[in-house]
């Protein structure tokens, strides 16, 4: 019992990320964020985006005021990255965050290690308000909570009252609780388990890259109810159905290559599905708190039909999201950063090895990811004025194309972000959904692709 209490106390101490002293407030990065600074650059920025399309042009003075007020409520987001001797840490961004013009390509030209760079930014154009967050700060859940709070405040300034409560919309007159920026991985570390099996290098799209700083987002909008009904028909969740469509598209690309070409390609595809850990562990944290399930398919065993891929995706998801499997993933991630040996290594050495390890055991092991944020909600007042939400994945030079999904007002929005020239994966994915009888409307952010 005493041992359990002391482990609990240690977890709580390790989960603390915010500190205050004579130099002001400062924060440390959560467990999942530590890999971000050394492995990102101005193209693979590690920035994901959540955006809202309103029913009228955005009012610039109002959104600026709303942003300043919301940023004060989320002081743990208004930060810059700094280097310590052993670890990175976060210091408050001194200047007020300014609303920027939203360019054609999202999530580009951002260097998180540059001094004076706030780790999130808010961009507007026309009817769209977009928030881009570095994964060093938060994950999709934290990003959406910020955007929803910003939208409610914006509409309040425009004379539209919320007209109801939403647990993910924060009151701006309240002080942030320490639990909002706790490192939930450390808080829920339950002991050292054997490491999960290391994956194998996965098949990846060999597409050539778009010109530097072009990031293509192909969005597919489809009605939610028929999509849910189709998933139910297969006896799986919507995420599993979409992941299966993703695996099916990859399979088509792999088998469409000539035999000679195929022999050079890796024969295993692996699609990563981020799982929101807040469903399993209680926490108010707005830092990263997701783990990943890998859905794999070995092409050496031959081509599989779609129904088979769907069932395999369903069972693999079930197998990997039980309590011991999750606990051992947390154990692997947390135990590494708690080891004295790792902690004593100077930061520049850590950075060097982090890049190598990330290349070998990170992105190299996946063909792409599809992240489902689930349904987004807003209080009724603002909800009446928001036509659509989007969730765009962070750009990756290795997997090139990844997808993010959310649903809003009876529509499912699937956003494919890609640094690659080929649109084949997107085409095959949406064709598969269309072949299931789901009507998909497609849009692309790039007017001209060079």
């Amino acid at each position: 019992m005493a041992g359990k209490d002391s482990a609990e106390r240690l977890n709580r101490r390790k989960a603390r990320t915010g500190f205050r002293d004579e130099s002001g407030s400062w924060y440390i990065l959560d467990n999942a964020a530590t890999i971000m600074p050394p492995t990102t650059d101005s193209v693979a920025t590690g920035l994901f985006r959540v955006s809202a399309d309103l029913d009228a042009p955005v009012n610039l003075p109002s959104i600026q005021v709303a942003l300043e007020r919301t940023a004060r409520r989320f002081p743990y987001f208004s930060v810059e990255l700094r280097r310590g001797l052993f670890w990175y840490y976060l210091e408050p961004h001194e200047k007020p965050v300014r609303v920027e013009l939203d360019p054609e390509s999202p999530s580009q030209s951002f260097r998180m290690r540059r001094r004076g760079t706030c780790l999130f930014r808010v961009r507007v154009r026309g009817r769209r308000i977009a928030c881009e967050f570095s994964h060093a700060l938060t994950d999709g859940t934290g990003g959406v909570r910020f955007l929803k709070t910003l939208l409610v405040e914006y509409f309040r300034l425009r004379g539209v009252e919320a007209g109801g409560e939403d647990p993910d919309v924060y009151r701006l007159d309240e002080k942030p609780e320490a639990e909002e920026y706790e490192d939930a991985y450390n808080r829920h570390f339950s002991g050292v388990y054997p490491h999960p099996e290391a994956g194998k290098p996965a098949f990846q799209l060999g597409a050539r890259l778009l010109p530097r700083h072009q990031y293509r987002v192909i969005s597919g909008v489809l009605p939610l109810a028929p999509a849910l009904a189709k998933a139910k028909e297969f006896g799986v969740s919507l995420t599993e159905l979409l992941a299966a469509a993703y695996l099916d598209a990859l399979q088509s690309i792999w088998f469409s290559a000539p035999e000679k070409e195929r022999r050079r390609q890796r024969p295993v595809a692996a699609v990563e599905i981020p799982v929101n850990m807040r469903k399993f562990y209680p926490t108010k944290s707005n830092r990263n708190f997701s783990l990943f399930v890998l859905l794999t398919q070995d092409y050496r065993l031959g081509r599989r039909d779609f129904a088979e891929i769907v069932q395999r995706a369903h069972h693999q998801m079930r197998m990997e999201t039980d309590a011991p499997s999750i606990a051992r993933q947390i154990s692997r991630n947390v135990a590494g950063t708690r080891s004295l040996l790792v902690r004593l290594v100077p930061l520049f050495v850590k950075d060097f090895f982090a890049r190598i390890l990330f290349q070998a055991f990170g992105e190299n092991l996946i063909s792409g990811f599809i992240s489902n944020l689930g349904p987004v909600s807003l209080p009724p007042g603002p909800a009446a004025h928001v036509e659509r939400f989007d969730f765009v994945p962070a750009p990756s030079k290795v997997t090139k194309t990844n997808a993010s999904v959310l649903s809003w007002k009876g529509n499912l929005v699937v956003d494919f972000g890609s640094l690659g020239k080929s649109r084949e994966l997107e085409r095959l994915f949406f064709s598969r959904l269309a072949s299931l009888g789901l009507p998909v409307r497609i849009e692309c952010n790039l007017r001209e692709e060079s």
Partner: protein
Amino acid sequence: MPTCPDCGVELAEDARSCPLCGKPLGAARPHAHEKYIDPEDRERLTERERRTIAWEVLSVSSAIAAVAVLAVNLIDSGALTWALYPLFCLAFAWTVFTGVFLLYRKPMLAILFPALALHAFLLGLDLVDGRLTWALPLALPIALDAELSAAAAWLLSRVSKRKGANLIALALLAVVTLCIGVEFTLDRFLSGRVALSWSAIVAFTLVPIACFLFYLHYRVGKKTNLRKLFRL
């Protein structure tokens, strides 16, 4: 409510341009510059007009001074003798000012030009009496040393993101390199043997002060908490 035609966002009622893309709004075009210029109304002069007036005033003043010096020398001795020195100095000052005026938009060239002009001036001054004696072994190396020390300090101060005590430290280090260079040049010119003495004392005195100032600036002044830096 005005709307930016480019960004499509609504702007404040009194906005003259869009804060996002910077484009002026149709109703608020910049005022056309009026042709009539009142020299006493400085607010209505552009930067370039102000610089042109300053250059004209300096050119006329230099010409008056040159004519006066020349006249006094000719009346006094009937030939061009000592006036060559002040004339040379006036020509140097005018050339440097004109060069900086012309190269105003190219800061690197505007700095480089006076530096090169100084070497030409020193060389020319030495040659006034028809013999090259002190310029090459003494004046030019010392001038070069001073310029390089100042340039290094300036460049380092430019790249410094937070300016404060570190600038004083850089200036002290520039003084140290200048003193060492001056003593080195003087020793070689006077005795042909280099033995640093007084410049070493300057270095021993100023370098620790510079180090202390750097420490103050980058550690104590920034209120950096060592817990942040050395957190394990």
